[in-house]
């Protein structure tokens, strides 16, 4: 067999079978012998015990035979380990940064994603590191597990031989949400992979734009004003168009939130004049949140790159949302919803405003005045900090009044104090 063709998963599984096979035989043998001796040599059946103290030959046999067996296991295990370690030279490189409690994959063209998308049949070499504590990249389907260590790069590789979605766990305990640090490997065709790579990533670009791309909208609707299979989406907001209804009547349509939602999600009242009725309804395929992002992009265009939605993208990319929810529930840190303008966790009782957030981002423990598990974010650019703060500001809601140090951890903490949260009686 050519070394390059070694199937690592197969090699590992062969070692499993070898060890389990030998173990099962030994276990059955040991147990059967034990039971047989207890019955056969019970005091009733065998009142007079033998008196021998040992048997050299027997002892030599059960030293030599297990030694040979375990050396075989050692070799087999080492062989399959090599297969897991030696990435083929044609492997594509993906960089992975793990952080509490999400994953950031970076592809060769600089694109980022939180789910690992790979082409089927192509070996993928992973270069892993961590932004905070130890994590572990564990993809059971490919038998690989590689710890991510801050300040160090570790390596591993795998190859998806068939398309599909394969779970990825964090294997090294990393604090509160360790159990939710789950993502997946999506193995897709080469064409799909290339399309994915070409999509704008989630960086500072508008997430609604990325969604328009990933949902396939942009294959029929351009962003540069030229009509394609469908009308261009450039400056679509507020534009007027003529709609042809099913009974061939023409009526005017102004593009706004309601009409765009109707056109995207359906049911549609007609087709824009000059185009074929070929667009599918996206009801059920685009979530309400996604639609909001898309509409925000269509309304504001790239100019909203410094708007709150861009701030959400920053929060997502930096992993903030692993600890801070946007729906008012406390995870590890206080929810972003209602945080702005409310009372922060700071010992001095300061209100949360732009200056406060900036200070916390630079030195969390220093600003809050007590130890915290939140890391500092010195790498954020001024622009990124700016949009992040705008994003926090945009999340209105009830000001955060829960006393510091009593987040959702304590059962009964919600008794009657948080109407509408629906937690009542859930634990008792």
């Amino acid at each position, binding site marked *: 067999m050519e070394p390059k063709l070694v199937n690592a998963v197969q090699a590992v599984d062969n070692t499993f079978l070898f060890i389990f096979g030998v173990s099962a035989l030994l276990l059955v043998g040991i147990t059967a012998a034990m039971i047989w001796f*207890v019955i056969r040599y019970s005091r009733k059946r065998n009142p007079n015990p033998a008196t021998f103290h040992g048997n050299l030959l027997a002892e030599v046999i059960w030293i030599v035979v297990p030694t040979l067996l375990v050396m075989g296991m*050692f070799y087999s295990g080492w062989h399959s380990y090599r297969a897991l370690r030696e990435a083929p030279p044609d492997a594509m490189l993906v960089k992975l940064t793990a952080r509490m409690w999400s994953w950031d994959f970076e592809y060769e063209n600089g694109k980022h994603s939180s789910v690992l998308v790979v082409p089927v049949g192509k070996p993928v070499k992973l270069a892993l590191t961590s932004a905070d504590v130890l994590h572990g990249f564990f993809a059971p389907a490919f038998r690989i597990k590689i710890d991510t260590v801050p300040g160090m790069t570790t390596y591993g590789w795998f190859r998806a031989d068939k398309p599909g979605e394969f779970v990825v766990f964090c294997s090294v305990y990393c604090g509160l949400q360790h159990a939710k640090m789950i993502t997946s490997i999506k193995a897709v065709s080469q064409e799909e992979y290339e399309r994915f790579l070409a999509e704008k990533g989630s960086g500072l670009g508008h997430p609604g734009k990325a969604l328009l791309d990933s949902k396939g909208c942009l294959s029929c609707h351009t962003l540069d004003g030229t009509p394609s299979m469908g009308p261009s989406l450039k400056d679509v907001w507020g534009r007027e168009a003529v709609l042809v209804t099913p009974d061939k009547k023409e009526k005017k349509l102004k593009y706004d939130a309601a009409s765009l939602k109707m056109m995207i999600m359906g049911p549609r009242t007609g087709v824009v004049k000059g185009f074929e009725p070929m667009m599918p309804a996206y009801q059920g395929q685009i979530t309400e949140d996604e639609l909001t992002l898309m509409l925000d992009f269509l309304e504001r265009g790239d100019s909203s790159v410094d708007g709150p939605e861009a701030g959400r993208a920053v929060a997502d990319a930096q992993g903030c949302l692993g600890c801070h929810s946007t729906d008012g529930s406390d995870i590890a840190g206080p929810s972003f919803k209602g945080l702005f303008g409310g009372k922060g966790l700071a010992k001095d009782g300061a209100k949360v405003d732009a200056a406060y957030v900036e200070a916390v981002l630079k030195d969390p423990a220093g600003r809050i005045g007590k130890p915290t598990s939140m890391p500092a974010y010195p790498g954020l650019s001024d622009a990124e900090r700016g949009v992040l703060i705008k994003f926090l500001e945009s999340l209105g809601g009830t000001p955060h009044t829960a006393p510091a140090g009593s987040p959702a951890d304590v059962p009964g903490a919600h008794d009657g104090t948080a109407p509408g949260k629906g937690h009542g009686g859930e634990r008792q």
Partner: protein
Amino acid sequence: MDHTHDPQATAFYKPDETGGKSGLASWIFSTDHKRIGLLYLSLILLMFCAATVLGLIIKLKLMTPGSTLLSPQQYNAMFTLHGVIMIFLVVIPSVPASFGNIFLPLHIGANDVSFPRLNNFSWWLYVIGALLALTSIFTGDGAPDTGWTFYVPFSERTTTNVSVAVIAVFILGFSSILTGLNFITTIHRLRAPGMTWKKLPLFAWSLYATGWIQVLATPILGITALLIFAERVLKLGLFNPAQGGDPLLYQHLFWIYSHPAVYIMILPAMGVISEIIPVFSRKPIFGYNMIAFSSLAIAFAGSLVWAHHMFTSGMSDTAVLVFSFLTFVVAIPSAIKVFNWLSTLYKGSISLDPPLLFALGFILMFSIGGLTGLVLGSAGTDIHVHDTYFVVAHFHYVIFGGTGLGMFAAMHYWAPKVFGRMYDHAKAAWSFWLIILGMNVLYFPMFIMGLQGMPRRYYDYLPQYAPLQMVSTWGSWFLAAGLILMFWNLYQGCRYGPPATKNPWGGATLEWTLPSPLQHEAFHHDPVAPEPYDYKGVNPDG
């Protein structure tokens, strides 16, 4: 038997009429190895019950996916406490500190250990360590949530009460070191005339090997725990890459102790099994030399395999090669012991009394635990199952199925000697079968889930693991029922059971020449060293 007086009246746990301390002080300041052993035993069992309850709550929480019985933070603290208490307060001291203290001197014909006051001091260190560990739960910003392994950098960053917990570990380490030192010296210096090394009971041999690991490896744990404390308080940066430190260094230091520590946990239990099997087979132990030697071999080779906990950590492939190889080497002496125990049964005259039942349970569970350990020693397969339920299952088979059942076997073997009363055999057998059933239903599904990828230390899990998680939780209930029955039966027996004879099982080691219960002073003059496994002329007198 001596008919002139009732041995119960002058038992070592009754007030000593010849003067000295009385009341509580006669216990907590006692230098009597038997009393210290009992003090350890009661605290260890108390801690065992507490940590078992934590384990049961964890299993209850995991019964269904999405359960909200515990919040994530509570769950993380709870598995940390379960581990810390079980490892440092229960399993490490278990057999050596309790039954080792009571029976090691008697086995070698001595009236106490070499340093009785140091022995009392060790117990006090244990108490202080235990109190500090409890303090860490209820003070500061919440109970530690790092797992019992205290891995950096998380343990440096978490705001929970890790600093107090690692100081507790530091102090508990010294308790263990001093006990080991005491035992080694005792075995060297206090053997009765004629008690040559080849007449030393195998239990003493196992404690001797254990003692060396305790003395040589535990200081490294102490230093490592202190380093964590220093990192948290002084921000030294030894393990912090931002300051030029190395997180992997911590893992090496931690496992240089903590792998040998699993042999501290298992060797004394193996010693108990080596005592029990020949007694109930009425036949000399098969291959005495090889069993004694294998204890030393395990202690030695077991100190060289620590980094097999780190195959995925990012250390070099060469290190993986070496540590995988050495791990397989240490498997051999363990296998030798199992075969020797089986051969001791062969052509014996076996009476399936409760101590033997538990000992045979040990062999079964330890074999499963040991054989699945081969999967973990093999580099390629370890990558897949490392940090999954497979490891959790393996560890519980070895430590609960091994050390735990070894401890229970010791309790059933020696209870009549210590307390002078006999428990109910039928109930003991019932409790054994419940425990074996419970353990297997609880832990075996974890092997399967681990192979399917279920990571450990998850407060919630994907729906695909739901059926096996549920079965595993049922197992925990059987296990709990078995434990309750066993403890209740032992308590009833030791308190109200019929008087036990001097030698109810027909053991040939020296403690069986003494009255039941044990008296304040064991040997009034030097005993003659017996052949410890020669049962000619020695018969059960019960």
